[in-house]
C-alpha cells in the first residue's frame, strides 16, 4: 500500500514537471526554437527538437498516467532527465555561450542549480522504476 502511494506521488511529480515544462515551451515556441538554434551542439537539429522535445515530454507524461505503461514512463523519464543533465554539463564545460532553453520558471535557475534540480528528479525517476517493478512483482505473485 505504501509502495503504491509512493509510486503515485512520484508519478504525479514527474507528470507535473513534464507537462509544465512542455506547455511552457510550446507557449513560447519561437523563443525556444531560436534558443535551440543558438545552442552550439544542436543548432542543426533545432527545428526538429523544438517540437519533438515538448511532444516527447507530453508522451512520457501520458505513459506515466496510464498504470499499464507506467514502468515505461519511469524508464523514459530517467533516460530523458539523464540526457538533459549530460547536455547541461557539456554546455557548462565546453561552451562559452549558454542560452537557456528551459521551460517556465526553470529558466530563472542558475545552470548549477538546474543540474542539481535534474539530479533530484533523476533519483525520483530511478526510485519510481524500482518501486514500480516491486509493485508489479508483488501483484504478479498474488
Amino acid at each position, binding site marked *: 500500500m505504501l509502495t*503504491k502511494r509512493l509510486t*503515485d*506521488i512520484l*508519478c*504525479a*511529480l514527474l*507528470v*507535473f*514537471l*513534464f*507537462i*509544465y515544462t512542455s*506547455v*511552457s515551451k510550446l*507557449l*513560447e515556441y519561437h*523563443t525556444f526554437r*531560436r*534558443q535551440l538554434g*543558438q545552442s552550439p551542439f544542436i543548432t542543426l537539429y533545432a527545428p526538429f527538437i523544438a517540437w519533438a522535445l515538448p511532444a516527447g515530454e507530453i508522451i512520457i*507524461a501520458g505513459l*506515466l*498516467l496510464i*498504470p499499464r505503461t507506467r514502468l515505461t514512463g519511469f524508464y523514459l523519464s530517467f533516460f530523458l532527465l539523464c540526457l538533459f543533465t549530460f547536455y547541461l554539463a557539456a554546455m557548462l564545460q565546453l561552451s*562559452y*555561450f*549558454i*542560452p*537557456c532553453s528551459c*521551460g*517556465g*520558471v526553470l*529558466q530563472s535557475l542558475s545552470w548549477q542549480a538546474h543540474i542539481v534540480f535534474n539530479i533530484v528528479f533523476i533519483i525520483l525517476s530511478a526510485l519510481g522504476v524500482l518501486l514500480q517493478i516491486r509493485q508489479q512483482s508483488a501483484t504478479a505473485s498474488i
Partner: protein
Amino acid sequence: MKKTLSLGFLAAVLAVGTAVAGKMRNEDPHWLMNDNSIVTGTANYIKTFYCAGANNIQCAVQIEDPFVVIRKS
C-alpha cells in the same frame, strides 16, 4: 486505479494551469540597450534576440532593477 489516474490527472491539469497562468501574469521588464534604446521582454528573450553571444560585454540593463545585466560578446 481510478485514484491513481485522478492524482496523475490532477497533477497534469495543475501543470497546464500553472504554465498558462505564469505566461499570462508575466509583465515583461524593460531593458536599456547599449545604443540607449529601450526594449521590453523577458531576460531570456533579450539574451536570445538582442544579446546572443558569449557572456563578456554588457549588452542590456533592466530599468526596473539596474543590478540585472545581460552580457554578450
